[in-house]
Structure formats: structure tokens, C-alpha cells
């Protein structure tokens, strides 16, 4: 298309604000798909970074770093508490006869708890609660990160273990859209999900376009028995619901990106074949085709260089509409568990993952991907509709 015609087309396109909005939204989604690794705050598939403590957090929750444990062993011999090995994490101070203060050397961060294990039965740990059965004394939020241990009499020899627990620390990262059962950030998962859904959708719809358009042109060019065969195959394909074809293919072949693409091609090729054939037939009746015949051009050249470019605008419109339906078919299949493998979670699989939590009020796992998928498909459909209307003079008012 040349510049003047494009300007005119753009002018007519922008007469509808819905169309402009859907174009903007579609472009945003495409940008999300392309730049997901740079846009997304975390890499949701970096398993090393997932922590169970972050699982199922609602929207806006902070991420936490779980508290740490510091352990040290001491030997209690002849009224003395002596650290085993060269442990410098803890310090032991005497506080009179049969009295020790056990504390963490570094007292900058307040400990959540300090536990002492294995003390003799008659030990008294100030402020601590004793485990009902085990010889464990736990002091919550110890002052100065220290515990004071006293004995009425000379204590028996024992092996003592001190366990200092630090509190969970917020990391500053917020789960804007909550987290899933693996503690994965839903915002990042959605961005990556858009990427996978859009890539699979575009690749699948594109393959269907190539295959279907090729067959449609072949039918228009050869006519006769080949035409009849291709068009009956189109009718046959159209008589099955898309989801049924998809389920059947994936049930037989198993899940995988290339199998989802194959399923979409088998579902969608017929639309391109039908459209390309009828467009090509009407182009073949025009005088410029007769002129090309008069130039004794080979048939393939007439079809590809003269007929195809004149059919392309409508085929591209069909392509934009079919990307949306390829994405929704892939999402449906993934939701049903037969689409993409677990390592490539598309939006459909994210929705499916959240499905089991929806009735326990953890709606956000399905909610986010669901809304995003909805907006994306509606925008792409509106855009495709507008392009189709502009391409079809009959729709002009």
C-alpha cells in the first residue's frame, strides 16, 4: 500500500474510538509478549527463587525472607558452660554462681526466639516457657538477644544446644497480583503467560494462514476435481467444533507446542482456504489477469505475484481475527490440561492452576490471567472486526 492510501485507511480506521482503543490494547499486549523478560519483576520459572512461604498470598502482599536459625552446642561440665568447637556466634557470660547468660554475639537484629535444649531438669531460664515433655526452654523475643540460665545447685553435666531464630524479613518486593500455590508472582506469571499465549497463537494462526491460503489458491487455480476435493475437505472440517478437533488431536498425539499448532492449523486452515479461493476466483476474472496470461506468465507466477497480493488484505484481516481464536483455543486446551506442557504455562494453564483455589477465596490466581485473556481476545476481535469492515465496501454507511 502506498502512503496516500495508507493515510486514507488510517483516517477511516480512527473514526471509531473503539477501534483505536482496541488497537492500542493489542499493541500493548504484543509489547508484553515481546518484552516479558524485561518487563516482568521476577522470572517466574526460576525455581530456585520460589519459597513455599510466599505461596497463595493475596494481591498486594509483601514477599518475605524466612527467618534463619543459628545453632551452637555447648558442654556443661563442672558448673561451666563451654562452647563446643570455635563457635563465635554465641557468647557465654557468667552471672554469679551457677548462672550463665547465653546470648547471640551480634545483637543488632532482634531475635524472634532463643531456644535452649538439653539443660538439666532443674534449670531456670528467666522468662522462658518449657516444652511440656522435652527439655526445651524457649524464650520469645529475648531482651538483648540473651537468655539467663540459673541453677539452684551445681548442675549435672550435659550437652546443651542453643537455637536462635531470626524473624521473617520483608524483602520489599510486593506481590501486586498475589502469588500462586508455588509462591510465584502472578504478575510475572501473567506477563510470561501472555508471551507464550501470543507466540503460540501467532505461530499457529500463521501456519494455518500459509497452509489454508496455499490450498485455497490451488483450488481456485486448478478447479475441477482438485477444487471439489479441497472444498469438500473444508466443509468436512467446518462441521466439527474446534475444541473437539483440538481435544482429539492432543489426546492422540499428546501435549506440546507443535501439537497445539497442528491442532489450530487443522481447525483454521479451512477459513483461509475458503476465503482465498473465493477472492482468487474473483481476481482471476479481472482483466489484469488476462493481461498476465497474454504475457504468457507461468501459472505459479500469476497466482503468487498477481492474484495473491490482491487477496492479501482480506486474508490478513482474517489472520488478526484468527489469532484471537487460536489463543482462545490454545487456552481452552491448556485449561483442560491437554494443551501446552507444564514448563510453558500459558494463560489458560494459569487459570486452570487457580481453579482449585477459587472456592477457598483465593480467587486471584485465576482472576488475573482470566481478565487479561478476556481483554486480549476482545481487543483483538474488535480490531479484526474493524479491519474487516474497512476492507468490505458493503459495510460502509
Amino acid at each position, binding site marked *: 500500500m*502506498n502512503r496516500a*492510501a495508507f493515510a486514507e485507511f488510517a483516517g477511516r480506521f480512527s473514526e471509531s474510538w473503539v477501534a483505536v482503543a482496541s488497537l492500542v490494547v493489542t499493541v500493548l499486549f504484543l509489547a508484553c509478549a515481546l518484552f516479558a523478560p524485561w518487563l516482568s519483576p521476577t522470572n517466574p520459572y526460576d525455581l530456585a527463587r520460589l519459597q513455599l512461604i510466599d505461596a497463595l498470598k493475596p494481591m498486594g502482599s509483601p514477599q518475605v525472607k524466612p527467618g534463619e536459625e543459628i545453632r551452637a552446642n555447648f558442654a556443661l561440665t563442672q558448673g561451666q558452660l563451654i562452647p563446643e568447637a570455635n563457635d563465635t556466634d554465641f557468647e557465654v557470660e557468667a552471672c554469679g554462681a551457677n548462672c550463665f547468660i547465653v546470648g547471640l554475639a551480634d545483637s543488632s537484629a532482634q531475635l524472634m526466639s532463643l531456644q535452649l535444649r538439653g539443660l538439666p531438669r532443674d534449670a531456670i531460664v528467666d522468662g522462658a516457657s518449657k516444652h511440656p515433655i522435652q527439655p526445651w526452654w524457649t524464650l520469645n523475643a529475648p531482651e538483648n538477644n540473651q537468655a539467663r540460665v540459673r541453677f539452684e545447685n551445681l548442675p549435672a553435666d550435659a550437652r546443651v544446644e542453643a537455637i536462635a531464630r531470626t524473624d521473617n524479613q520483608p524483602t520489599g518486593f510486593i506481590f501486586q497480583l498475589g502469588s500462586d500455590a508455588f509462591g510465584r508472582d502472578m504478575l510475572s506469571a501473567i506477563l510470561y503467560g501472555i508471551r507464550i499465549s501470543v507466540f503460540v497463537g501467532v505461530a499457529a494462526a500463521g501456519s494455518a494462514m500459509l497452509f489454508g491460503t496455499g490450498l485455497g489458491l490451488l483450488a481456485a487455480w486448478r478447479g475441477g476435481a482438485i477444487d*471439489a476435493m479441497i472444498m469438500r475437505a473444508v466443509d468436512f472440517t467446518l462441521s466439527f467444533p474446534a475444541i473437539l478437533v483440538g481435544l482429539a488431536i492432543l489426546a492422540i498425539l499428546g501435549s506440546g507446542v507443535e501439537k497445539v499448532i497442528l491442532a489450530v492449523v487443522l481447525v483454521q486452515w479451512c477459513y483461509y482456504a475458503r476465503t482465498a479461493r473465493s477472492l482468487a476466483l474473483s481476481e482471476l476474472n*479481472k*482483466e*489484469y489477469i*488476462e*493481461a*498476465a*496470461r*497474454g*504475457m*504468457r*506468465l*507461468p501459472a505459479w*507466477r500469476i497466482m503468487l*505475484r*498477481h492474484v495473491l*497480493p*490482491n487477496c492479501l488484505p482480506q486474508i490478513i484481516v482474517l489472520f488478526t481475527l484468527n489469532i484471537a481464536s487460536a489463543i482462545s483455543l490454545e487456552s481452552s486446551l491448556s485449561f483442560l490440561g491437554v494443551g501446552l506442557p507444564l514448563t510453558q504455562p500459558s494463560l489458560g494453564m494459569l487459570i486452570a492452576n487457580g481453579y482449585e483455589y477459587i472456592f477457598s477465596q483465593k480467587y486471584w490466581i485465576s482472576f488475573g490471567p482470566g481478565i487479561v485473556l478476556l481483554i486480549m481476545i476482545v481487543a483483538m476481535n474488535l480490531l479484526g472486526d474493524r479491519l474487516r469492515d474497512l476492507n468490505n465496501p458493503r459495510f460502509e454507511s
Partner: protein
Amino acid sequence: MQVVQTVFQADEVSRVFEPARGTIEKLTDRLTGKRPAIVQAVDRVSLSLAQGETLGIVGESGCGKSTLARMITGILPVSGGTRRFRGEDYESFLARRRDALKVQMVFQDPMSSLNGRLKVGEIIGEGAVVHGIVPRSRMREHAAKMLERVGLAADSIDRYPHQFSGGQRQRIGIARALAVEPELLVCDEAVAALDVSVQAQIINLLMDIRQESGLSMIFISHDLGLIRHLCDRVAVMYLGRVVELAKTSELFGNPVHPYTQMLLAGMPRISTERRTFMPIKGEIPSPLNPPSGCHFHPRCDRATDHCRISRPDLREKGPSHLHACLNA
């Protein structure tokens, strides 16, 4: 007398169009014994064209002129009859694609006869490049040369067809035909879609080209004035058949067939307005269901019972004056 070489010859060529039928329709047709309605667009037409000659074909809309033109150009296969180019059978001639370029056509509709998605340079140069007449690197140069030959600026090669007026587009169509060095140019109503003033320019261009290159031409029109001005011989067609074929002076001076006479009677003497047919009395019969015998009999005032039954074949009136009337 000098021996005149025949460039093109058609011998009883016919063309029928059948409506496109699906498999099911074909089957029900066969079961019910119904024969699908067929159009006999061209019915056993014989013509020949000498080297350097211009043959006019005239007739009302729908009488099969374009169909005949397409068969002559080899764009459309014949349903019957034979075509020859310089004595060679057409099928083998067309099979040698590069030689087949010697017959070219200029189309009626300057809008749809150019592919709107290609630049003018590509439209003109494509044939020559594909057939190796010029290398691809020289395509633009070749196209520019052709554009200058038809009176357009050489820099038009980078523009698209819609940027030109109807007359300019028709020049581009002529340049496209000339680009492959044709020997026979078939012009199918090449000026019918243009304004009268532009028509004259295009006609002058065609006459110049004919003079420069000694092209043989078949000039199809329903404009009798143009035909008279341009052609050496004229064939008059009616409902797919040639009804009269004679030298131009002979045909205009001494028309024999009642149809030709009616056409000429309707032709205005003073050529100020558009010199096309005056509507002549009677309706044009449907080519789907043509009248029996002589197709012209429902409109002919000399018709007899014989005309309704038997088909008049071409017969000689004088030297090289043929007509198909039983009562002339």
C-alpha cells in the same frame, strides 16, 4: 501482384460457455436428463489477417467480440475450430511461450487491466524480463523507454496505476503490449471507456505505432466512425456469428447484410457527438436462447420462412466481400 503473408487465421472457431456446475448439480442434471443452459458466445467464425493489415470487428455489446479477441490472443481456448499463426497450429505456437508473445492485447477497461499492486515499471517490464527479452537489471530502463514511446514521462515507472488518468492508464496498457515486441496487436474496445478527446489521442498513438512498426492489428469497437477511419477490412458480428466481412470502403459504401445496413443507417453523418450505435429497432435476443435459422430474423424486415429454418453460411457477393444473408 505481391504475395501477402497471412499472419493470423481462424477457421470456424467457436466458443461455448457452460454455467459452472457443482458435482451434485451435475449429478441431478444427468439423472433428470436436463441439459444445462449454454451460451454460444462465438459460433464458427473464420477470419484471416494479412501482414500489416488492420481488421475491424464491429457489433453490439454481447455479440462475442471480446470472446473472439481472447481466443485470437490465446488467453481463452477454443471450443471448436482451429487457429493458426503464420501457418503454424496455435497449440504448438502457444506452447512456445516466448514466441507466443508475438500476439498481444490491449484491454477495454483501463482500471482493471492494470494490477494495482505493482508499479508501472514492473507492469510493463515483467513480461520482457520473465521471458528473457531484457535482463532484470535493465527492466526499469526498458519500461521507461516504452513509456516514452507511448507519450508518458519515463519517471512514471515508480508510480502506481491509480495515480494516472484513464487515458494515461490506457497508454500504460499499450506500453505493456509493446514491451514484448508483438507482431499482432488485438485492441478490444481500447478507447470505449475514455472521454472523446482522450479517445482521439489514443487512436493517434495506435496509428503512429502501427506505422512505425508495421504491426498487424485487430481493432474491436462498436464505434463505426473509428472502424472506418482505422481499418482496412471490417467484420460485422451478430450474436456470435460474422454476418458480413469486406473491405472498409466496400462495407461502408455497399453494405449487403440487412444488419449492416441498419447499423450504418443509424450512424450520424456529422461526427461531433459520440459516434456509437443508434439503437436499432427490436430487442437484442438473448445469447442463451438465440433465434433459429438466421439469428437476425426477428429484427429483419426482409425475413422469410426460409430464414427461420436454415442457417445462412458466409457467401461471396463480390471479390472479397462475404456476407451471411439468404435474401441479399
